[in-house]
C-alpha cells in the first residue's frame, strides 16, 4: 500500500541542519538571568569591601577589632567595634538558649511522636510562626515582653537585650525545628525498626538512634539559626536600643551591628565621610561572620542530603 505521503517519506535524504538560532538565543537569555544572582554577590562584595577597605586606611584593623568603645560620631571619635559585636553575640546567646533546645525538642516531637493529624495541625502552625515579619516581633518585644519581664521582677531597662533575645528566640524556633525535622525524617526507617525490635522505647530510639544519625542536619539547623540571629535587624532595632554598651548584662540596653547599620544608613551621613564608611566596615564584619556560618551550614546539609537523595 503506497500513499503519496508514503512515497514522499521514502526519500528523506536531505537533512541539512538548519542552524537553530532561536535555541541559542534562548540559552543566552536564560544564562543572563542566571548571571543576575552572580551579579548580586559580586555587587555585595564590592559594595561592602571597597568602602571597608578605604575605612581601614584610616582606622587600623586592630584598633577596630579590639577597641572597646564605639563612638563614631563623637569628638573624639572611637572606632572599636567590640561593643557592637558583644551586643550581637549577647542577644544571639539569649535567643539561641531558647531556640536551639525548643526547636530541637519540637522537631523530635514532630518527627517521632506526632501522628499524621497532629502534624497536619502543627506544621502549618509552625509555618505561620515563620511567616510573621520581624517588625511584628519587634513590636511584641517592646510593648509586651519588656513590661512582662518587669512585672515578674526582672529590672530591665526600656530597651534591653533580654526582651529582644527572648522574642528572637521564638522567631528562630521554626528555622531550627524545620531543618532538624528534615534531617531526622531522612533517617531511614530500618534504623528505627531495628532498635524497636530490640525492645527500645520511643524515647531511646529518638535520642539514641535518630538524633545521632541526623546530627549533621541538626547542627546545620543550629548554625543557621545562629546565623539568622546575628543578621537580624528589626527586633533588635526596636527593642534593644542604640547604646553601644560593652556589657554582659542582658537587662541593659545595647546595640548590635545590624541596629547600628540601620540607624546610620537611614540618617543623613554624607557620602564618603569616615562616618559613612563605618556602615560598610561593620557591614563587612557582619557579612563575614554570617558567610562563614552559612557555608558551614550548607556543607552540613549537603552531607546529610547526599546520603539519601
Amino acid at each position, binding site marked *: *500500500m503506497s*500513499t503519496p*505521503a*508514503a512515497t514522499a*517519506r*521514502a*526519500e*528523506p*535524504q536531505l*537533512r*541539512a*541542519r*538548519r542552524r*537553530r538560532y532561536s535555541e541559542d538565543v534562548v540559552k543566552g537569555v536564560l544564562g543572563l538571568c542566571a548571571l543576575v544572582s552572580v551579579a548580586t554577590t559580586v555587587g555585595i562584595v564590592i559594595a561592602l569591601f571597597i568602602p571597608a577597605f578605604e575605612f581601614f586606611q584610616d582606622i587600623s584593623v586592630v584598633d577596630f577589632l579590639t577597641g572597646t568603645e564605639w563612638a563614631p560620631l563623637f569628638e573624639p571619635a572611637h572606632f572599636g567595634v567590640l561593643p557592637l559585636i558583644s551586643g550581637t553575640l549577647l542577644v544571639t546567646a539569649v535567643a539561641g538558649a531558647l531556640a536551639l533546645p525548643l526547636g530541637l525538642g519540637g522537631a523530635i516531637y514532630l518527627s517521632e511522636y506526632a501522628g499524621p493529624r497532629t502534624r497536619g495541625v502543627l506544621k502549618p502552625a509552625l509555618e505561620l510562626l515563620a511567616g510573621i515579619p520581624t517588625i511584628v516581633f519587634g513590636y511584641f518585644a517592646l510593648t509586651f515582653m519588656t513590661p512582662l519581664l518587669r512585672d515578674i521582677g526582672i529590672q530591665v531597662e526600656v530597651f534591653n537585650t533580654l526582651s529582644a533575645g527572648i522574642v528572637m528566640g521564638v522567631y528562630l524556633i521554626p528555622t531550627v525545628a524545620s531543618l532538624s525535622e528534615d534531617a531526622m525524617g531522612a533517617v531511614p526507617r530500618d534504623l528505627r525498626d531495628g532498635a524497636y525490635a530490640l525492645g527500645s522505647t520511643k524515647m531511646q530510639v529518638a535520642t539514641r538512634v535518630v538524633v545521632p544519625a541526623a546530627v549533621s542536619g541538626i547542627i546545620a539547623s543550629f548554625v543557621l539559626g545562629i546565623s539568622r540571629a546575628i543578621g537580624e535587624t528589626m527586633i533588635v532595632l526596636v527593642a534593644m536600643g542604640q547604646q553601644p554598651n560593652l556589657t554582659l548584662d542582658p537587662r541593659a540596653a545595647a546595640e548590635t551591628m545590624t541596629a547600628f547599620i540601620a540607624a546610620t544608613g537611614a540618617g543623613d551621613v554624607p557620602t564618603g565621610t569616615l562616618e559613612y564608611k563605618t556602615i560598610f566596615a561593620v557591614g563587612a564584619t557582619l557579612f563575614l561572620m554570617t558567610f562563614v556560618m552559612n557555608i558551614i551550614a550548607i556543607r552540613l546539609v549537603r552531607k546529610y542530603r547526599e546520603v539519601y537523595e
Partner: protein
Amino acid sequence: MVTMSDQATTIEPMSLAQIAQEHGDGFSEREAVFEVKDLAVEYSGNAAIREVSLDVYKNSVTAFIGPSGCGKSTFIRCFNRMNDLVPGARVHGDVLYRGKDLYADDVDPVEVRRRIGMVFQKPNPFPKSIYDNIAFGPRVLNLKGSLDERVERALRQAALWDEVSNRLKESALGLSGGQQQRLCIARCLAVEPDVILMDEPASALDPISTTRIEDLMHELKRQYTIVIVTHNMQQAARVADMTAFFSVDVAPDGNKRTGILVEYDRTSKIFTTPADKRTEDYVTGRFG
C-alpha cells in the same frame, strides 16, 4: 494448539518454533532502511554495547531479544539519536538511515526524530487533553494541514478512535494503561514517521492490551518499518519477521559487562534452528 478428542479438549502451549513457523516470514521487500556497521556505545567510558552490525528491512518488524542488561534499549535508542540526551554517551561506528549517516555533523536530531518515532516501555502521556497529546507533535513541527484530521487519522490508525472520539478534550491521564499506550502510538503516528521504534511497548500492560498492541504492529508494518525491543520471546515469535539475539559479554575480571549481538536472522530460523549455541540456550529457556 488445540486438540479435540471424544473425551476432552486439550490445549497445549505452542512451542516457540511452532509459533514462529505459523507466523511465517511475512515480508517480501528486502530494502534496508537501516544499515548498522560496527556500532559501539559507551556511557562515560563504560562500554554498553559493541561490535553490532545488522540491517533493518523496510516494512518489517524486527525484534531485539536477550537477557536484561545486554544493551537492547541502548541499541534501539541509537536509531533516533535519543542517546544524545544522555550526558557522557558516545556512539562509535555507523548507523545509516536510507544510506545517510545519522550521526553526520550536518544532521539535525530533530529531523531524525520526526522520521523515526519512539514508543516507550511505560506509557508516558502528557498531562494534557487527549487531543493536545496527539496534536503536540504536529504543532511543534509546524506540519501543514488540518489538525483535526491528523488527530482523527492517528487515533484511527492506533485503533483508539472509537473509544475516545467523544472525549477528546478530557485528560489523557484518565485513560487505562492499554489505552494510554495506544495513545502514545497515535501520538507517534501523527507526525507521519517512517520508522516506529518500540522499547518493550507491552511489558507494562495486561495480556489483553498486549494482544491489541501486537495486532496493531501487524497492521502498522504495512505502512511503516517497526523495530521492537522485547524480553518476551513468545511476543517476538508472534510479531517479528527478523529477530536479533543479544547477550552479555563479561570481561575476564568479571567487572565489565558489555552487550554484543550474537545472532540475527529470520525469526523462524532463530526459534527453530539457531546457528549459535548461546541463542539456542536462550530460546529453549536454559538461561536468561
